[in-house]
């Protein structure tokens, strides 16, 4: 199974990539995705996550083909 992982704004710089494809065999939560894909980087304060372009908690299970995104607090408007 495979998912797409994306990092926005300051997180892209912090993690050192803005996008990656992550292959996995066992069930993963959003939290696991961060740990696997960033090689265990500490969780940033106020980390936000989305699965398939909807806000998701870190304990949500990801599915094959999902797009998982991580980003810092939003600052639009």
């Amino acid at each position, binding site marked *: 199974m495979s998912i797409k992982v994306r990092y*926005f704004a300051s997180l892209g710089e912090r993690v050192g990539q803005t996008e990656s494809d992550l292959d996995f065999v066992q069930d993963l939560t959003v939290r696991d995705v961060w740990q696997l894909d960033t090689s265990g980087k500490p969780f940033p304060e106020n980390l936000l996550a*989305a699965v398939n372009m909807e806000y998701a908690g870190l304990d949500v299970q990801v599915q094959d083909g999902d797009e998982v*995104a991580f980003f*810092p607090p939003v600052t*639009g*408007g």
Partner: protein
Amino acid sequence: MKVKICPEAFNPWQEIQDYQANLTEGSPKFGATSIFIGTMRDYNEGVTVQSMALDYYPGMTEKQLEKILTDAGEYWQIIDAYIVHRVGEIQPDETIVLVAVWTSHRGDAFDANRAIMEALKSTAPFWKKEVLTTGQTRWVEKNTDGYQKM
């Protein structure tokens, strides 16, 4: 109800007039219109800002803005509503965001517009990076709560 992401500078008055011209057909007549416009200033937290880069999450940003309008429409009596949000390189005095709400009564127009702006500020995936006059850049870290008197 509609949202629009705008990579170029836009004239908010023109946007509202164009949108409003189309909403008159068939809709009930509106009696109240509430507009909010956010404009880029050339300073922030005591430092002169030369320009700004507004990053977003194409796909999710539109989806989230649409959800904000739908949620507002479930709570307030809204005839129509329109959000335009700028992305990309922004210069001082340019419009960042426009929220327009058309209703029958003024209470709904004011309350819905405000709630939409607060939801946008706290949940719509946009991120500002300021370019200072020194050439340095910095990410804006946090939006303030507009309901609190500063």
